[in-house]
């Protein structure tokens, strides 16, 4: 089948240090679809075009009038339409049931409305669940199910008869992310009996109290302290997982802490590193951190998610930015949204103005206490708050499914004088939307030459077509957003 030979296929780029006996995987699966679905016939094309003619605007007036029908003369759906785009990060041919996951975990996945494994899950899980346990370094785009992949692995590895004995540790760069992962483990493991999870983030574990859970999720510093103070018995640790691994290993402090934590876990059998980005420099270190790992890597042009429509607005000055911001909420249907700003006071000022217009807004930044940040994020997650304004704190990893608009109120910059565009942060920011194949919109504001150039550089770096939104005709803006999202959606599941 054609898609098997596609050069961009992720499967081709899984490198293995050793070659486990999984080589026959591809031929075995490739015959599956032809068994299930008959090959497309010539009639199908004709049927489809006349059908399209009968449908104005995607509607189906003529055909769905009756509740009953005789299926024998109907035209079968084309194979390509059923399969979707083989290059999509969500494309997969397997079902969760085929991956050898326990019934209890499967139930949790159903409970969370998971339907099919994503590509990263489909490719990585067979290796992750392999015995004896092997290390893995995996890269996959934002919102493609990395967290679920390692959570399933961890849940499959722990011995539930020892619920208070720590056996798996997940490290994340921020407390928000650690809390979020904790939540995902709870959801996927909701039907796993005897499952105990504990968060090891600042302020969550009382001094002197012992960690009494089989899975611990935390930030490196806190975990290190807990082990040192003997509150955390790491003697029987089996799995260590680093989420957003590149950022953890890259940063001076965090990287050291991670290494030290690793040194305190003598018995670890499996070290997993996951991230959406893996700069080359970090990759080398990652391979030392997680030796002999199976590696799944992406090319740079595959990094951006097709489902995210990336647009920009040329605003005249700072005041213009605010007016356009508030208008955007009418120009498209927004579930939840995140606005990224550079300075705390901008965040607070925008929050005030949007609140007056009836939005449920909160600004969150470093000035907040840890527990307060947990609470705010929880309210955002449950939809009590629908607009979140933040500085970079939340750029990475935070997954709130209903976010379908991300605004770069300020273009992300880095460097000593903020003079260099920060492409990685841009990618992580816009990755807060378009989760798991859904369509999301990202709009960046530029207002002067500097911001325009910076955004332009980022666009060049990832080879994205940024679409300009007019600011003087909102009917037109509305139309453009509608059409761009439509074609983004098409990009998520259609043949190239």
């Amino acid at each position, binding site marked *: 089948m054609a898609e098997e030979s596609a050069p961009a296929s992720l499967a081709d780029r899984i490198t293995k240090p050793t070659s486990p006996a999984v080589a026959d995987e591809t031929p075995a699966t490739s015959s599956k679809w032809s068994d299930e679905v008959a090959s497309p*016939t010539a*009639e*199908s094309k*004709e*049927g489809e075009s*006349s*059908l*399209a003619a009968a*449908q*104005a605007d*995607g509607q*189906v*007036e*003529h*055909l*769905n*009038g*009756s*509740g*009953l*029908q005789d299926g024998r*003369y*109907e*035209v*079968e*759906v084309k194979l*390509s*339409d059923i399969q979707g785009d083989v290059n999509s990060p*969500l494309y997969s041919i397997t*079902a*969760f049931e085929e991956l050898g996951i326990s019934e209890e975990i499967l139930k949790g996945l*159903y*409970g969370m*409305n*998971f*339907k*099919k494994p994503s590509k990263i899950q489909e490719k990585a899980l067979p290796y992750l669940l392999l015995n004896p346990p092997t290390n893995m370094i995996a890269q996959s785009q934002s919102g493609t199910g990395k967290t679920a992949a390692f959570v399933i692995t961890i849940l499959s590895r722990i011995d539930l008869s020892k619920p208070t004995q720590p056996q798996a540790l997940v490290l994340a760069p921020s407390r928000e992310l650690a809390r979020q992962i904790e939540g995902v483990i709870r959801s996927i493991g909701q*039907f796993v009996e005897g499952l105990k999870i504990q968060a090891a983030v600042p302020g969550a574990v009382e001094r002197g109290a012992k960690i009494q859970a089989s899975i611990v999720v935390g930030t490196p510093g806190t975990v290190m302290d807990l082990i040192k103070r003997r509150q955390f018995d790491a003697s029987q640790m089996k799995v260590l997982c680093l989420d957003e691994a590149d950022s953890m290993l890259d940063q001076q402090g965090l990287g050291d802490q991670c290494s030290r934590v690793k040194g305190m876990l003598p018995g670890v059998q499996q070290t997993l590193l996951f991230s959406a980005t893996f700069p080359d420099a970090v990759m080398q270190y990652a391979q030392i951190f997680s030796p002999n790992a199976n590696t799944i890597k992406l090319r740079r042009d595959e990094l951006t998610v097709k489902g995210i429509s990336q647009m920009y607005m040329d605003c005249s000055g700072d005041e213009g930015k605010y007016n356009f911001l508030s*208008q955007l909420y*009418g*120009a*498209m*249907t927004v*579930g*939840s949204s995140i606005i990224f700003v550079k300075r705390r006071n901008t965040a607070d000022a925008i929050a005030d103005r949007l609140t007056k217009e*009836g939005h*449920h807004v909160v600004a969150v930044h470093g000035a907040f206490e840890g527990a307060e940040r947990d609470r705010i994020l929880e309210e955002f997650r449950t*939809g*009590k*708050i629908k607009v979140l304004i933040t500085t970079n704190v939340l750029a990475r990893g935070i997954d709130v*499914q*209903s976010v379908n608009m991300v605004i770069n109120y300020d273009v992300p910059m880095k460097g000593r004088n903020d003079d260099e565009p920060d492409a990685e942060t841009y990618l992580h920011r816009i990755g807060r939307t378009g*989760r798991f*194949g859904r369509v999301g919109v990202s709009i960046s504001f530029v207002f002067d030459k500097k911001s325009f150039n910076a955004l332009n550089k980022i666009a060049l770096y990832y080879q994205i077509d940024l679409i300009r939104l007019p600011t003087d005709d*909102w*009917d037109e803006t*509305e139309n453009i957003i509608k059409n761009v999202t439509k074609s983004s*959606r*098409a990009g998520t*599941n259609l043949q190239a």
Partner: protein
Amino acid sequence: MGDQTSHDDLPSLLRRSHIHEGHDYDYNTRFENRNSEDVHRDALATAHIERERVREIAIEALSLYELTQEQQRLRQKTEQEEQRVNLEHERAVELVRIRELENKARQIPKLPPRLPTPPPPPAPSAPIQKPAPIINPPAAPTPPVQAPPSQAAQQQQQPQTQTQPTPANPNPNPFATQPPPASRLAQTPQFQAPAPQKPPQPQNHVTAPTSNATAPSHVFPGLERYLEIHKNLKNLRLFITNAGKADKALKTKTGEMRRALRQSIGQLTSEKGANRIPLNKIVDILRAALTTHPSPPVDPSTFMIKTPEPDDQATHNGDSLPTLFIYLLNVFCKAIITQFIEEAGVAPKAADPVGVIAISVFSNPQFQWRNRPLIDILIAKMRVVCPVLFGIRGSEKTEEGRARLGWKKEGGHWVGEQVHSTRMTGLGAGYAALCLRDFSKSKLANAWPPTHYWQALASIVSTPPDQSSPTQFVVLRAMVENYEAMFLRFYGTAAIAALKVVLVDFPDRALERNVATSSLKVLVDKLERDMGLKLKN
């Protein structure tokens, strides 16, 4: 305790006397005073208090005992009731199975010739030229009409609720021999050549009742008419768009109102009292269209299933309403549907506040015509985007089947499975949010009462296993999840029986076990864990 009258105990009684407090009061003095009046009175008082105390304890014990008895009796009754419902329900399910088996048996000889023959070329018209009945109806008589049952009636007829699938199941053929598809086709050109300058002419509604009378019982009444309403709304939108081309101010104004409506709906949250600003804004905009912005009149019955009779009490009792008002209601409805799809598809709980606002607007007398809600505008849209709710079925493996199920096409291709399932989740949850609104404390009439919820569930679960599709399971799950408590509140025991059919029997009957059926069945475990409601035996 109660032997305070005994003389041996006198010292202890004396100790209780308030006139003998203090430790220095020695035994002798007490002995001398033993016959004094004070001592006597004290003793009497003490006795009285003690008697009262004991009596109270006894009464309390008695009432506790009575309560436990009552509770036990109630529990027994519930169990009996549950058992009875279960039995009835099992009987019904067995009946359904027998019918299905009979049908399958009849189908067997017909099937072989199909395999070697390739599908005939003119595909889209195929359903209409369908040959004679393939599946014969069993001897069972079909109930003549299925009017939407009133809520009260529903509550009493719980045994029938399980049998509801039975009549619908075996006889798909009334439709096969039915003329309406042809007449429908004949009508269409009329709609396809609209006069853009004029608002659409009111259609006569003869078609609706006719198709009603002959439609299979699982199909929602007025199904065809909703498509006409949908078409009429499109024409109306076109009219406004064209008018806007000529009149820049109108274009700007309608654009602003449209975006304001969309933004307000996007702002809704489930927090109590948090939606005041957006709701007020929506009401203001709609009101402005009725009063401050004059626009040509249009006959509202064009957008209703039935033309209501004039009503003197009504706020709007004339022959028409402003076009702009209907247009904005249309925009409002569209925004609601998109919010369901975009937001509730991934966060189903987000559907609820949107449903609340939608129903409250349509139940508001100032936005009604002749005291009847204009909610058919919203339902017409629902019917197009999520036909499964209205009893329509189809196979996901065929072009026509997908079209019937409301599977969206974009750029000539079907949208992906995930996208479709997300849409259906949002719309299922959205429909539940519209249907299950409690008006018991309101003076207004509910624009879309809960019977519609029951009706949608019933029409889906009455699908024979060979015609059911994952779309239906997805929609069912979304309709049920988070709405169990509401459903139980409206329908009581009948709701439990219905949930059993929806979450246990219907997925169990499915020919294919897949993620959709498993996801639906997980709700059984969730209900047991979170609400203590056992649906499995």
